[in-house]
Protein backbone atom coordinates (compact mmCIF):
# COMPACT_ATOMS: atom_id res chain seq x y z
CA UNK A 1 0.00 0.00 0.00
CA UNK A 2 2.75 2.42 1.02
CA UNK A 3 5.34 0.97 -1.34
CA UNK A 4 4.73 3.47 -4.12
CA UNK A 5 4.99 6.67 -2.02
CA UNK A 6 8.04 5.27 -0.21
CA UNK A 7 9.78 4.57 -3.51
CA UNK A 8 8.92 8.07 -4.78
CA UNK A 9 10.17 9.68 -1.55
CA UNK A 10 13.40 7.63 -1.69
CA UNK A 11 14.11 8.63 -5.29
CA UNK A 12 13.49 12.31 -4.51
CA UNK A 13 15.57 12.21 -1.30
CA UNK A 14 18.54 10.43 -2.87
CA UNK A 15 18.78 13.12 -5.60
CA UNK A 16 18.94 16.06 -3.16
CA UNK A 17 22.26 17.87 -2.81
CA UNK A 18 22.41 17.03 0.90
CA UNK A 19 22.16 13.33 0.04
CA UNK A 20 24.90 13.73 -2.60
CA UNK A 21 27.24 15.30 -0.04
CA UNK A 22 26.52 12.51 2.45
CA UNK A 23 27.20 9.88 -0.23
CA UNK A 24 30.37 11.51 -1.56
CA UNK A 25 32.24 12.39 1.65
CA UNK A 26 33.07 8.93 2.85
CA UNK A 27 33.72 9.73 6.54
CA UNK A 28 30.42 11.58 7.02
CA UNK A 29 28.07 8.62 7.43
CA UNK A 30 30.26 6.72 9.96
CA UNK A 31 30.77 10.00 11.86
CA UNK A 32 26.99 10.57 12.02
CA UNK A 33 26.51 6.94 13.10
CA UNK A 34 29.06 7.49 15.88
CA UNK A 35 27.08 10.54 17.08
CA UNK A 36 23.91 8.43 16.83
CA UNK A 37 25.39 5.67 19.02
CA UNK A 38 26.70 8.18 21.59
CA UNK A 39 23.17 9.65 21.77
CA UNK A 40 21.79 6.11 22.21
CA UNK A 41 24.32 5.69 25.04
CA UNK A 42 22.98 8.82 26.77
CA UNK A 43 19.32 7.92 26.24
CA UNK A 44 19.53 4.21 27.06
CA UNK A 45 21.76 4.68 30.13
CA UNK A 46 19.49 7.49 31.38
CA UNK A 47 16.49 5.19 30.94
CA UNK A 48 18.24 2.36 32.82
CA UNK A 49 19.46 4.55 35.71
CA UNK A 50 16.04 6.17 36.01
CA UNK A 51 14.43 2.72 36.07
CA UNK A 52 16.84 1.57 38.79
CA UNK A 53 15.93 4.75 40.69
CA UNK A 54 12.20 4.09 40.31
CA UNK A 55 12.80 0.56 41.62
CA UNK A 56 14.51 2.15 44.64
CA UNK A 57 18.05 0.98 43.89
CA UNK A 58 19.74 4.21 42.80
CA UNK A 59 20.46 7.34 44.89
CA UNK A 60 18.47 6.12 47.87
CA UNK A 61 19.55 9.17 49.87
CA UNK A 62 17.65 11.49 47.48
CA UNK A 63 13.93 11.92 46.71
CA UNK A 64 13.01 10.13 43.48
CA UNK A 65 12.07 13.44 41.85
CA UNK A 66 15.75 14.50 42.08
CA UNK A 67 16.89 11.30 40.34
CA UNK A 68 14.25 11.98 37.68
CA UNK A 69 15.52 15.56 37.31
CA UNK A 70 19.03 14.14 36.80
CA UNK A 71 18.17 11.53 34.16
CA UNK A 72 15.03 12.73 32.30
CA UNK A 73 17.08 15.40 30.45
CA UNK A 74 19.20 12.56 29.00
CA UNK A 75 16.03 11.26 27.37
CA UNK A 76 14.75 14.71 26.34
CA UNK A 77 18.09 15.70 24.76
CA UNK A 78 19.03 12.27 23.46
CA UNK A 79 15.90 11.82 21.38
CA UNK A 80 16.19 15.00 19.22
CA UNK A 81 19.87 14.22 18.53
CA UNK A 82 18.82 10.71 17.49
CA UNK A 83 16.05 12.02 15.24
CA UNK A 84 18.37 14.51 13.47
CA UNK A 85 21.30 12.08 13.07
CA UNK A 86 18.85 9.35 12.02
CA UNK A 87 17.25 11.66 9.45
CA UNK A 88 20.71 12.39 8.01
CA UNK A 89 21.44 8.64 7.74
CA UNK A 90 18.11 8.16 5.92
CA UNK A 91 18.96 11.08 3.60
CA UNK A 92 22.30 9.46 2.75
CA UNK A 93 20.68 6.14 1.81
CA UNK A 94 16.88 6.33 1.77
CA UNK A 95 16.47 2.92 0.16
CA UNK A 96 18.45 1.28 2.93
CA UNK A 97 15.96 2.57 5.53
CA UNK A 98 12.53 3.70 4.38
CA UNK A 99 11.26 0.44 2.78
CA UNK A 100 13.15 -1.70 5.34
CA UNK A 101 10.85 -3.62 7.74
CA UNK A 102 13.49 -3.38 10.52
CA UNK A 103 13.48 0.42 10.14
CA UNK A 104 9.67 0.60 10.12
CA UNK A 105 9.49 -1.57 13.25
CA UNK A 106 12.14 0.63 14.88
CA UNK A 107 10.07 3.78 14.29
CA UNK A 108 7.03 2.10 15.87
CA UNK A 109 9.12 1.03 18.88
CA UNK A 110 10.53 4.57 19.26
CA UNK A 111 6.98 5.98 19.33
CA UNK A 112 5.89 3.44 21.96
CA UNK A 113 9.04 3.98 24.05
CA UNK A 114 8.51 7.75 23.91
CA UNK A 115 4.90 7.32 25.07
CA UNK A 116 5.98 5.09 27.98
CA UNK A 117 8.68 7.64 28.90
CA UNK A 118 6.11 10.49 28.95
CA UNK A 119 3.82 8.43 31.23
CA UNK A 120 6.80 7.68 33.49
CA UNK A 121 7.87 11.35 33.63
CA UNK A 122 4.36 12.42 34.67
CA UNK A 123 4.12 9.71 37.32
CA UNK A 124 7.48 10.54 38.82
CA UNK A 125 6.84 14.28 38.90
CA UNK A 126 3.52 13.70 40.70
CA UNK A 127 5.39 12.66 43.85
CA UNK A 128 7.87 15.46 44.53
CA UNK A 129 9.07 14.49 47.99
CA UNK A 130 8.22 10.81 48.07
CA UNK A 131 11.05 8.31 47.86
CA UNK A 132 8.95 5.47 46.52
CA UNK A 133 7.27 5.09 43.15
CA UNK A 134 3.90 3.43 42.63
CA UNK A 135 3.21 0.37 40.53
CA UNK A 136 2.26 2.45 37.47
CA UNK A 137 5.60 4.27 37.51
CA UNK A 138 7.51 1.00 37.90
CA UNK A 139 5.67 -0.61 35.00
CA UNK A 140 6.12 2.49 32.80
CA UNK A 141 9.86 2.57 33.62
CA UNK A 142 10.42 -1.12 32.83
CA UNK A 143 8.29 -0.91 29.69
CA UNK A 144 10.14 2.17 28.42
CA UNK A 145 13.50 0.50 29.09
CA UNK A 146 12.46 -2.70 27.25
CA UNK A 147 11.08 -0.69 24.31
CA UNK A 148 14.26 1.41 23.98
CA UNK A 149 16.29 -1.81 23.98
CA UNK A 150 14.01 -3.31 21.32
CA UNK A 151 14.41 -0.13 19.21
CA UNK A 152 18.20 -0.42 19.52
CA UNK A 153 18.14 -4.05 18.34
CA UNK A 154 15.76 -3.23 15.46
CA UNK A 155 18.17 -0.44 14.49
CA UNK A 156 21.08 -2.86 14.29
CA UNK A 157 19.02 -5.19 12.11
CA UNK A 158 18.46 -2.43 9.51
CA UNK A 159 21.94 -3.30 8.25
CA UNK A 160 20.97 -6.95 7.79
CA UNK A 161 17.49 -6.61 6.33
CA UNK A 162 18.43 -4.95 3.05
CA UNK A 163 15.79 -5.25 0.41
CA UNK A 164 17.02 -6.72 -2.92
Amino acid sequence: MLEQPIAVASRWLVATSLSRVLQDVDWLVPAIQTLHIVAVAVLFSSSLLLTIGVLGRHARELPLARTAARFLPGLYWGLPVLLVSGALMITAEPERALPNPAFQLKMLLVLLASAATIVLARRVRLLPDEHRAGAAARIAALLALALWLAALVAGRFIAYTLIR
Partner: protein
Amino acid sequence: MAVAALLQSLYDTPLAAWIRESELAFPCIESVHVAAITLVVGSIAVVDLRLLGLASRERRFSRLSADVLPLTWGAFAVAAASGFLLFASNAPRYAENTYFRAKLLLLALAGLNMLVFNLGSRRGLAAWDDGGRVPRAARLAGALSLAIWIAVVAAGRWIGFTMLAGY
Protein backbone atom coordinates in the same frame (compact mmCIF):
# COMPACT_ATOMS: atom_id res chain seq x y z
CA MET B 1 54.15 -17.11 13.13
CA ALA B 2 52.53 -18.16 16.40
CA VAL B 3 49.96 -15.33 16.47
CA ALA B 4 48.76 -16.08 12.94
CA ALA B 5 48.35 -19.75 13.81
CA LEU B 6 46.41 -18.85 16.96
CA LEU B 7 44.09 -16.51 15.02
CA GLN B 8 43.55 -19.20 12.38
CA SER B 9 42.72 -21.86 14.97
CA LEU B 10 40.22 -19.45 16.55
CA TYR B 11 38.71 -18.94 13.10
CA ASP B 12 38.49 -22.74 12.67
CA THR B 13 36.57 -23.43 15.88
CA PRO B 14 32.98 -24.66 15.38
CA LEU B 15 31.66 -21.67 17.36
CA ALA B 16 33.41 -19.16 15.08
CA ALA B 17 32.19 -21.03 12.00
CA TRP B 18 28.64 -20.96 13.30
CA ILE B 19 28.74 -17.19 13.94
CA ARG B 20 30.19 -16.68 10.45
CA GLU B 21 27.74 -18.89 8.63
CA SER B 22 24.46 -18.44 10.50
CA GLU B 23 22.21 -15.66 9.20
CA LEU B 24 21.19 -14.50 12.65
CA ALA B 25 24.14 -15.19 14.96
CA PHE B 26 26.28 -12.21 13.94
CA PRO B 27 23.54 -9.53 14.03
CA CYS B 28 22.18 -10.91 17.34
CA ILE B 29 25.60 -10.93 19.03
CA GLU B 30 26.30 -7.51 17.53
CA SER B 31 23.05 -6.15 19.00
CA VAL B 32 24.11 -7.39 22.45
CA HIS B 33 27.55 -5.82 21.88
CA VAL B 34 26.09 -2.41 20.90
CA ALA B 35 23.56 -2.41 23.77
CA ALA B 36 26.35 -3.24 26.25
CA ILE B 37 28.69 -0.57 24.84
CA THR B 38 26.02 2.12 25.04
CA LEU B 39 25.57 1.24 28.72
CA VAL B 40 29.33 1.33 29.35
CA VAL B 41 29.67 4.74 27.65
CA GLY B 42 26.49 6.25 29.10
CA SER B 43 27.13 5.09 32.67
CA ILE B 44 30.82 6.03 32.76
CA ALA B 45 29.78 9.44 31.37
CA VAL B 46 27.63 9.97 34.49
CA VAL B 47 30.78 9.58 36.63
CA ASP B 48 32.91 11.65 34.22
CA LEU B 49 30.39 14.52 34.22
CA ARG B 50 30.40 14.48 38.04
CA LEU B 51 34.21 14.77 37.97
CA LEU B 52 33.92 17.68 35.54
CA GLY B 53 31.38 19.35 37.84
CA LEU B 54 28.73 19.36 35.10
CA ALA B 55 26.14 17.02 36.66
CA SER B 56 25.17 15.11 39.85
CA ARG B 57 26.97 17.74 41.95
CA GLU B 58 24.48 17.20 44.77
CA ARG B 59 25.71 13.63 45.26
CA ARG B 60 28.84 12.42 47.01
CA PHE B 61 31.30 11.17 44.39
CA SER B 62 31.81 7.94 46.37
CA ARG B 63 28.06 7.19 46.52
CA LEU B 64 27.51 8.03 42.87
CA SER B 65 30.35 5.75 41.76
CA ALA B 66 29.17 2.97 44.08
CA ASP B 67 25.72 3.22 42.44
CA VAL B 68 26.91 3.46 38.84
CA LEU B 69 30.24 1.66 38.42
CA PRO B 70 28.99 -1.92 39.08
CA LEU B 71 26.64 -1.35 36.15
CA THR B 72 29.54 -0.09 34.02
CA TRP B 73 31.62 -3.17 34.86
CA GLY B 74 28.74 -5.56 34.21
CA ALA B 75 28.06 -3.96 30.83
CA PHE B 76 31.79 -3.99 30.05
CA ALA B 77 31.98 -7.74 30.73
CA VAL B 78 29.06 -8.34 28.33
CA ALA B 79 30.61 -6.03 25.71
CA ALA B 80 33.99 -7.78 25.98
CA ALA B 81 32.51 -11.29 25.76
CA SER B 82 30.24 -10.46 22.80
CA GLY B 83 33.08 -8.52 21.16
CA PHE B 84 35.33 -11.56 21.48
CA LEU B 85 32.71 -13.72 19.72
CA LEU B 86 32.43 -11.23 16.85
CA PHE B 87 36.22 -11.13 16.64
CA ALA B 88 36.47 -14.95 16.66
CA SER B 89 34.14 -15.20 13.65
CA ASN B 90 36.81 -13.62 11.46
CA ALA B 91 39.89 -13.36 13.72
CA PRO B 92 42.69 -13.09 11.11
CA ARG B 93 40.96 -10.22 9.26
CA TYR B 94 39.94 -8.29 12.38
CA ALA B 95 43.47 -8.61 13.75
CA GLU B 96 44.88 -6.80 10.74
CA ASN B 97 42.13 -4.13 10.64
CA THR B 98 43.59 -0.73 11.61
CA TYR B 99 40.43 0.43 13.41
CA PHE B 100 40.20 -2.81 15.39
CA ARG B 101 43.79 -2.27 16.55
CA ALA B 102 43.00 1.36 17.35
CA LYS B 103 40.00 0.24 19.40
CA LEU B 104 42.12 -2.14 21.49
CA LEU B 105 44.69 0.63 22.01
CA LEU B 106 41.94 3.05 23.11
CA LEU B 107 40.59 0.44 25.56
CA ALA B 108 44.10 0.12 27.02
CA LEU B 109 44.27 3.92 27.34
CA ALA B 110 40.87 3.98 29.09
CA GLY B 111 42.18 1.35 31.54
CA LEU B 112 45.39 3.29 32.12
CA ASN B 113 43.44 6.53 32.72
CA MET B 114 41.27 4.72 35.27
CA LEU B 115 44.33 3.21 36.98
CA VAL B 116 46.08 6.58 37.26
CA PHE B 117 42.88 8.12 38.64
CA ASN B 118 42.43 5.36 41.23
CA LEU B 119 46.06 5.46 42.34
CA GLY B 120 46.36 9.24 42.27
CA SER B 121 43.46 11.68 42.49
CA ARG B 122 41.09 9.35 44.24
CA ARG B 123 43.41 9.19 47.26
CA GLY B 124 42.56 12.74 48.31
CA LEU B 125 38.87 12.04 47.77
CA ALA B 126 37.79 13.01 51.30
CA ALA B 127 38.59 16.64 50.48
CA TRP B 128 36.20 16.85 47.52
CA ASP B 129 33.82 13.90 47.85
CA ASP B 130 30.99 16.04 49.21
CA GLY B 131 30.66 18.64 46.48
CA GLY B 132 34.00 20.43 47.02
CA ARG B 133 36.07 21.60 44.08
CA VAL B 134 37.32 18.58 42.13
CA PRO B 135 41.15 18.73 41.73
CA ARG B 136 42.48 19.43 38.27
CA ALA B 137 43.98 15.93 37.80
CA ALA B 138 40.61 14.31 38.56
CA ARG B 139 38.79 16.66 36.19
CA LEU B 140 41.36 15.80 33.52
CA ALA B 141 40.71 12.08 34.14
CA GLY B 142 36.97 12.70 33.59
CA ALA B 143 37.55 14.63 30.36
CA LEU B 144 39.98 11.99 29.05
CA SER B 145 37.56 9.20 29.88
CA LEU B 146 34.71 10.89 27.96
CA ALA B 147 36.94 11.52 24.95
CA ILE B 148 38.43 8.00 24.93
CA TRP B 149 35.04 6.26 25.16
CA ILE B 150 33.58 8.35 22.33
CA ALA B 151 36.67 7.42 20.27
CA VAL B 152 36.06 3.73 21.15
CA VAL B 153 32.54 4.02 19.68
CA ALA B 154 33.92 5.74 16.56
CA ALA B 155 36.61 3.07 16.07
CA GLY B 156 33.95 0.35 16.43
CA ARG B 157 31.78 1.99 13.78
CA TRP B 158 34.75 2.29 11.40
CA ILE B 159 35.52 -1.42 11.89
CA GLY B 160 32.02 -2.15 10.54
CA PHE B 161 32.61 0.04 7.48
CA THR B 162 36.04 -1.35 6.66
CA MET B 163 35.08 -5.01 7.26
CA LEU B 164 31.79 -4.45 5.42
CA ALA B 165 29.90 -6.63 7.87
CA GLY B 166 26.82 -4.87 9.14
CA TYR B 167 27.68 -1.25 8.53
